[in-house]
Every structure is written in structure tokens, then in C-alpha cells.
């Protein structure tokens, strides 16, 4: 028997399952054509200006102001979304109340609503004659066509990320740990701040990073409400569009490279957070 067994030729492929070359081939072809070559075109482009030219293109006051606005407001929006995301996830996981199913379903609205639709709706809502804007203008608060409008739109677009990252982790957490903390004499506040929040930290940071990444790059929902005043309420993606319209390809690409770099850093940070979370489990 063993003699026959030895005669069986070794399989040509190391794999038992078929289709490795075909599926990986399609994947790599797609990724190369659609992603890698165009990304390369973006990364190389600003250096047609030379390193100095690249620096000059991104260090103008208008570009710096737009980057500061995009990153700063995205950071604030991610912070607000983290706080409310925690409250909403907590309520959805721990409590029972009427309308819970509806609340849960509605969270994904910013994913489902096209950004242009959200943009004109938010803009109309917060404009001085809008439903919310008219209430605020009475107290001399303006949101639409100011940097605060940018914050509102970014908070809108980022909320699902924080809620949806926290929800599964919170429901997996279980009550036992909190009960232990309570039997050991911790107050409820101590239990939350010293036990629950640290356990949720990877998920909190992941959700915040995702909301931040989305906010930094967000275009459609922001440009209508922002008013787009150069150096005041002009976000970086809009400045890319403006530069393209002026045929300043290299200048547009320079801002694009900065934003792409930020995306990469965030993506790496998210991967790091994921393995951190996996280690702690």
C-alpha cells in the first residue's frame, strides 16, 4: 500500500482549494490599477515643485489655516462624538426603554444619507432663518457660515463611528466586573471611571480615530454650511478643489499628500489600537 502511496505525484499547488491565482490576480490587478498607480501619481506630483516648492505650497497662510480648521474641528467633533457616543451606546446596551429599536436604527442615518443631502439640510437648518438658526440668532449665536458650522457637520458625520465601535464591546463587557468592583466597595462613579472606561479605552479611541479620520476628509456635508470664507471657514478638501479649478495641480496635490499622510498615520494607529484591544481580551 505504501508503495502505491509513494507513487502519487505531489500536487503542483501547495493549496488544496482552487482559484488562488485567479482571485489574488483579480485583487492585485484591481488594487494596482484603481489604487496604487493613482496614489503614486498623487505622491509624486508635488515634488515636481521640488522639496522647497512643496513646502512653499503648503506653508501659505491660507493652506495652513484650512488644515488647522479641518484637523482642529475634526478633533473637537471626535471628542463630542465620543462623549455622546458613550452615553448612547450605554443607554442602548444597558437600559430598556420604549423607542430603543428606533434609536438604534437611526444611529446609522449619517452613513445612509448622502453627504450632499446632509449638507443642504444642515445648512438650511442652522442658517439665520432656519429652524435652529433662528432660535440661536436671538442669542446672537451664529453657526452656519462660521467655523462652528464645520463642527456641526463633522459631529453629524462622525457619530455612528463612535456608537457602533462602543456598542459591541460594551455588551461583551458583562456586569460581573462591575459587581466585583461594587462588592469591593467602589462607588458607582469609581466603578465607571476606574473600571469601565479603562476597559473600553481601545474601543473609545478606535471610534474617535474613525470619526476624526472621517471628519478631516469630509467634504459634502461641510461645504454648504461652512460658508467657505478663505482662511476662516474654508476646509482643506475644499481648497484642493479650488486649486484644481485654478489648474494649480501641484498645489492641489501638495495638500492632498498631507491629507493622505494623515490618513495613513490614522490607519496605522487604528491597526495598532486593534491589536491592543485583541491583546487585552
Amino acid at each position, binding site marked *: 500500500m505504501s508503495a502505491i502511496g509513494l507513487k502519487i505525484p505531489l500536487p503542483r499547488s501547495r493549496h488544496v482549494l482552487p482559484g488562488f491565482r485567479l482571485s*489574488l490576480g483579480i485583487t492585485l490587478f484591481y488594487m494596482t490599477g484603481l489604487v496604487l498607480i493613482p496614489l503614486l501619481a*498623487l505622491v509624486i506630483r508635488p515634488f515636481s515643485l521640488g522639496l522647497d516648492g512643496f513646502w512653499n505650497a503648503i506653508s501659505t497662510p491660507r493652506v495652513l489655516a484650512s488644515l488647522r480648521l479641518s484637523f482642529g474641528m475634526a478633533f473637537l467633533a471626535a471628542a463630542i462624538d465620543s462623549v455622546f457616543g458613550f452615553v448612547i451606546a450605554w443607554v442602548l446596551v444597558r437600559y430598556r426603554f420604549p423607542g430603543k429599536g428606533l434609536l438604534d436604527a437611526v444611529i446609522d442615518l449619517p452613513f*445612509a444619507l448622502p453627504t450632499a443631502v446632509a449638507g443642504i439640510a444642515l445648512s438650511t437648518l442652522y442658517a439665520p432663518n432656519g429652524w435652529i438658526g433662528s432660535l440661536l440668532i436671538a442669542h446672537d449665536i451664529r453657526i452656519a457660515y462660521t467655523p462652528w458650522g464645520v463642527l456641526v457637520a463633522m459631529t453629524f458625520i462622525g457619530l455612528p463611528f463612535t456608537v457602533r465601535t462602543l456598542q459591541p464591546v460594551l455588551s461583551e463587557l458583562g456586569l460581573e466586573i462591575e459587581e466585583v468592583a461594587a462588592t469591593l466597595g467602589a462607588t458607582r462613579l469609581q466603578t465607571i471611571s476606574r473600571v469601565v472606561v479603562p476597559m473600553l479605552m481601545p474601543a473609545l479611541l478606535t471610534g474617535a480615530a474613525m470619526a476624526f479620520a472621517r471628519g478631516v476628509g*469630509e467634504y459634502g456635508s461641510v461645504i454648504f454650511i461652512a460658508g467657505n470664507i478663505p482662511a476662516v471657514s474654508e476646509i482643506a478638501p475644499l481648497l*484642493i478643489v479650488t486649486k484644481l479649478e485654478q489648474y494649480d495641480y501641484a498645489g492641489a496635490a501638495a495638500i*492632498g499628500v498631507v491629507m493622505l499622510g494623515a490618513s495613513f498615520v490614522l490607519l496605522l494607529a*487604528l491597526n495598532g489600537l486593534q491589536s491592543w484591544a485583541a491583546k487585552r481580551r
Partner: protein
Amino acid sequence: MSALFNSGIAPRQRFHRPTDDPVWLKALLVVMAFGFIAVLLLLPLLLVFREAFAGGFLALWTAITEPDSLAAVRLSLMAAAIAVPLNTVFGIAAAWSIAKFDFPGKTFLVTLIDLPFSVSPVVSGLIYVLVFGMQGWFGPQLADHNIHILFALPGIVLATMFVTFPFVARELIPLMMDQGRDEEEAAATLGASGLSTFLRVTLPNIKWGLLYGVLLCNARALGEFGAVSVVSGHIRGVTNTMPLHIELLYNNYDYVGAFAVAALLAMLGLITLALKSLLEWRYADELAAMHRH
């Protein structure tokens, strides 16, 4: 201690769990959650429909059936009809190679597939301008042969594909990794061909996840604004998709028109949301793998 001794004898004493928050706190947090969601998410949605119907149903109908709006609807549907099937094929291929085989650089590939989610839509459009634009890599050659990619359907399709290609792959990769290789290997050793293994073994296992991914991919494809805006050229009635048409109408102070098209897209979003919730609820077990990762 007294609760322990008295149990069964004294009138039932309500045991207070340490993890039970007081009623006032529960009420406060629930009201906070509802208030935040209502103001931030529901009011804008309500406003879209309110404004769309502000001029009555007839005005809404006229705005949607106006030739330029119809052209925008047609273009959006066409772009999605090309981009979504291609991305579905890519998603299945990527998930099959990543979940069923081991090869170096796999983690990097998975990270790269996620990239469009964290890249600005404007940057997603910009990269194609730099490749196919007149100042781009292939622009002049393409112009010589009279091939139009930018400011035409191919550019819109490419930008849409870039923005939406992770959706199917993202859903399928964790799902197929979770299901392992045993069933397919069993089929293969029993002599099934690759195609029939996929159609009879893998596909039934992943169909709901696949549908889920296609659903999200389609919604984003029809609603994409930033990336398409950069490559479309904004030619009214020719290269304006639905979201771009909304922008044009809104900037021309045609609010009824803008919100009419917006309501159409919002309806699509709501339908997507409903189907998504239905899938999550009906097929929670099949989809669970995706949400664990």
C-alpha cells in the same frame, strides 16, 4: 445580612443590584441620547422632506421630472450599475484569496483595502485627475486618441469605484475567515470543481453578508459627492450625478428643486437603512462574524 435571614419570611425586599443605575440617572441619560439624536440626526431628515413638499406635491413632481434632474438620475444609476457589480466581483475575489489562502503581505493588503474609508473623497477624485487630467500622466495621450475619461462617464465610474470598493470586501473578509476552509476543502477532496465549490458551498454561506455589502456599496455609489465632484466637470444635464445636481440647484437658490432631488436620495437612504436593519435582525447569526471583528 438581614435580607439574607429574612428571605422567605418577611415581605419581599427589593434587592438592589449594584449595576442598576438609579431611575433618575437612567431617565437623564435616555433623554440625553434621544435629544442629541433628534437634534443632530432627525431634524435634518425631517427638514429635507418638509422643504421638498413646501411647494406642494406638484412642484416636487415637476422638479424631479425636469429633464436635467432625470438626466442626473440616469447618470447616477448608470455609474452605480457599472461600479457595484465590478466591486462585487473584486470583493468576492479579495475575500476568497485572503480568507482561504495564506500568502506574505496579507495584512498589508487588508489595510490597503480599508484605505478609501479614511481618505478624503476629494483626494479620491484628485488622484484620477492627476492620472487622466490634461496635466496628468496619461492625459495628453488620451486626448490625442480622443478618449475622454475625466469630465465624462468613465471618470465618474472610476471615482465611484474607488470610494465604494471596500464595502463588499470588508463584509466578506471577516465572514469568510470566520467560516474557515473545512467545508470548501471537503468539497474539493470529494471532487467538486472550483466553480461548483464556490456556488454550492461558499455562496450559500456568505449570501447575506454579500447582500449586506452590496446594499451599502450601492447606497454609497448613488450618493457619492466629493470624489465625483472633482472628476465630473459639472456639466448640467450631462455629467451631473444626483448629488451634484442637488448642489447646482441649491447654489442657484432653487430650494424646491434641490430638496426634491435630495428627498429622492434620502428615500433611498431610508430604504437602505430599513433593509440593513432587516438583514441585521433576520440574519444576526450569519452576520455576527462581521461585527465581532
